[in-house]
């Protein structure tokens, strides 16, 4: 039970309850504002009846031809509002929008160690498409899973046939 509405730039001033979570990255202002400018329809926030921000999703649509896809850049729910299937609701919104836009699939990156998230995405119909070596940099570099879910336009589900070998970040950049 919540109101899902477009993310407003002023929400940045009060999203600490979500972003203080250690697995949620806080980015520079430009990052959020560019998403608001380029893909405002992909940036949604869930608000509790009491006014708290419960969580948000930010994403985009990109790629050419059969690679045109929706991408989940970040989805995060405040600890106090977990177990309400809110992330699933937000993902569903993004998928529906991507479907309406004519995307072939939706993809996302997740830390390989984040088992809870990987499991949640699997439950939502995502599967590991490939592994990306050292995608996350920091004290300890970590690999990412690139997980995908085919949309209605990809009738043969070609977009989600997993790659056999992991890829490096430089290969990713070439795409």
């Amino acid at each position: 039970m919540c109101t899902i509405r477009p993310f407003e730039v002023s929400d940045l001033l009060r999203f600490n309850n979500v972003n203080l979570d250690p697995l949620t990255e806080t980015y520079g202002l430009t990052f959020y504002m560019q998403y608001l400018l380029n893909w405002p329809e992909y940036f949604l926030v869930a608000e509790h009846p009491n006014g708290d921000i419960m969580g948000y999703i930010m994403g985009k649509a990109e790629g050419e031809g059969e690679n045109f896809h929706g991408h989940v850049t970040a989805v995060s729910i405040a600890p106090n509002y977990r177990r309400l299937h809110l992330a699933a609701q937000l993902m569903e919104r993004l998928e529906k929008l991507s479907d309406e836009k004519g995307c072939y699939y939706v993809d996302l990156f997740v830390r390989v160690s984040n088992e809870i998230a990987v499991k949640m995405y699997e439950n939502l119909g995502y599967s590991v498409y490939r592994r990306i070596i050292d995608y996350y940099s920091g004290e300890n570099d970590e690999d990412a899973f690139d997980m995908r879910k085919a949309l209605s336009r990809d009738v043969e589900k070609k977009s989600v046939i997993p790659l056999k070998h992991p890829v490096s970040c430089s290969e990713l950049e070439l795409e």
Partner: protein
Amino acid sequence: MSKSIGAEEKVNTRRLKPVYDALDGAQPKKALQEAEKVLKKQPNMPACRALKALSLIRLERSQDAFDVLSGLEKEMEALSFDDNTYSAMCHAYREAFTPERIPRMYELLCSRNPQSEQYLTHLFMSYARIRDYKKQQQVAMNLYKEFQKPAYFFWGIMSVVMQAITDQKLGSTMFFPLAEKMIEKYFENKISGSTSKISDVLNNDGELKAYLMILEGRGRYEDIIKLLEESNTARIVSHVDKKLWGTGPFISSTAAEWIFRRIVKYLKILKKHEKIHQECEKMIKSMKSDWFLIETYNESLISILKSGSEIPDGKQSTILSSFKSELYNMENFNSDEKTVSMDNVIRTKLLGRFELMSRLVKEGEVNQQELATVLDSYLKSSPLEHFKTYCNYYYRNPSCFSDIRDYLLILLNIDEQAELVKHLEESVSLQNDKSGCASIVLLERVKRLCGVHFLLTSDERWDLINSLFSAVQNSNDRDTCGAALVHIIVFLLWDIYKLEDDHYALYHISVLLEFAAEKYPGEQNIRLLACRVYGILGAPDIVQSLTRQLDVKYIQRDTLAYLMFPLAEQYGSFRNAIVYYTGLSSMYDQHEREIAECLVNAYKFSQYDQVPKFIDLWEKSTNSVYAHAADTCNQFLAPSFAVDNIDIAIQTLKGDDMSIKWDKLSDNRDLKSVSAFTVENDKYYKEVDKWKEASFVEIIDMLKYRHLICRCASLVGKETITYEEFSKQLIELRIHQEYCQKTYVLDKPSKLIQAFTPSRFAHFMKSGYFELLDLLFDSSAKLIALKDSRKGPGEKNDEPDEEKILEMLPAPDDVFNAISKFLPKITQESLKPLLVQDALFDCAESVGVIMFSIVLIKLFELLICHIFGKNPVVAVPKPNKKDKKKKDTQEAPKEKKDGLVDRFEQMKPVYGEQLVKLDSTLDILKDFVMSGEYLPIFETNHFSQEILEEHRKVVHIRLRDSYLNSINHMKDIISRTQKRFFTRFADLLPGV
């Protein structure tokens, strides 16, 4: 000819490549070296000079950069440069935070190339960056006139809209009507035979939203609704590819929702509640668990009933009878939903009912008894049963309490509240909670909300703490319920601290939090609570380390600045404070630049509805109280602790020339959204709001006071200072000081858990610090008046009367007495465990003021130089042995010659003696800390001592280290000051 130009360009491009590469690779030093290499071959090459300026800015050598840029600007008046040069200059101005210099450049270029679309668009963007809406408008309309692109017209329109938003009065009478006239004329020209509707001629949703802003500004809500209902409007806001969906009336899911909410917004303004009600009923079955819908539905229902109208489909028109039917109606919510779980259906239904019932009670339409009767007769239920049901279903959800919190006290009387508590207690014992401790968490939260925790006796409170701690120990480490229980224990201990002023409870809390931080490493609320406790205990180092662990960055550094501000300086960690303030200051500069660039992109990408929102964020960030706090506190601290040159000290004290709009400062503190803190009742949060408001005003008053003393001090060192200028500033300071003295009387920091790091301005005001500063500023005023009375340069002046100056200078005894008044009187006996921070606070405040007063005395010396037109004291040679003999025989004239020197010499023992006292006090503190007595013996029958022993040791070590760092830092400052303060007229300041 053209071939040779092409060849030259190629050579330049090749030569500049290493410079560009170095800049792109974030190597400004290398870029500068590469630029210098090129300039050796081509000293005048403009693009290279501009890149050199950019490199210099990135190396923080702004002055050198501006010399280069000014040279280029001058040449530009006669010469034309290539576009790379202009682009690099533009970058340099932006990165140097001087975007106001960019329009000048493009104005010149546009006057030379009036037909250049490129330069005109650059000019528009340069005005957009500095929010000069009027100039923006002119340029945009020129662009539109010349090139007829719709985007330019909408740039112009938005420039008018922004003028309307900025100036509300003229907005309604002039700017919105103007925008309306402009846009309607534009549409008139666009609409032709085949296109008859406005939505047909709109190119994108940006244009639509710009038009909506104008219609809203003109109050034309009916027209807005009409426009929103047009099928093409849905297409425009659907964000889908036309090619994919053809020209049919496709509406994306987000677009449908957006349009619905917009229409409802305007229907509310028009008070068309019946229509809203109908619209909601249509939507209710297709939108899942949408709270906006339920809230709007309930709101419209009550508005209809209040107005005495009939509900559209002929339902009853009395509140209660309607309520009955609406309750049934709610049964239908989500009935068509296949994808929504049963859980969600019940949740929606119950919360919808709670919302409706509490709205009815809050608006005085029914009372609790009437509600109970209705529910009983129609549903064979009661509000209490509803709450029981909700808790039974959802106690495992962390949000269960947050969901019902706002309704519980409204809908249940005291007896029912007690019954709910009893029900939850029974559930706890029944479930024995295999799922962790969720039901205990819910029970205790409800008890706290209903006030049960506040009725406990001391023993009962400790019993509860013990039993909760046992539950924590039994909980799963990955279970957030355990951490939630820790929060409740913290609140219970905090009650003891608050009610009994028992600092021992804080000790318990800190040990418990260390334990919890280890057990639940991902629980950030634990760290936030720890920030509060260690803040009270006066340990800035620990809080700093905690904020690092919290990974507070970017915008969070503004909204969570209260965690750290102004802790470091309050407890004598001055160098850390300066580093912290400097970092904070750069962050705000960076944000200003980033927002300006995104604002420009909002125009470029036709996202016009983001324009006012980005500007609002820009204002909130630029006017954030902490943005000004960082600057002002550095102005106050840096001359004493970080600057080693008197000219830079004066410049620092002066700050930038921009006047601060104190009434426009923004309070961006995010205090409420931390879930751990949201378990109290509304009365408590009203108190928090009150504190927030009061503490905001207090911070501003403190900053204003600091700002004014810094300004006055900078004027003392200004060579061309006049009495009029100084006295004006001094009067402003005195008026504000008088107001502060009257306002800030009680130094009693709030014990609300949200009341992080109070500024304790009252402590400053009542401790007599300002008396020392008053004394010095009084002398300054007299000396400046004397300087004023002297003739200008080139005219003959009499030798200044030293006796007169001596009278004007502060008497050493007065300075001594003024310092004595505030020096902390601390003895070994007066120090108590858990209260070291008070002594540390007193010492730090004294060090801060003493060091500032020393800077002022240095400025006196400079002022006297200005009066004499030279350095009189250095000019007077030190008496040698021969002179000494002579002095014995000819005392009178020598006395006169050495008067000024003596006066400054006499200050040395004054400060020396007081600093020694302060140093001894710090030694006493240090011994106390080293002895370990700063914390009491941790004897507890309450917590398991064995389990917490390790964590008790951690608290001991962390506090000891932070205290010692603060003490040693202050001792170091004192020692350096004693060595260097009286380097006469040298340009060295004391604390460096």
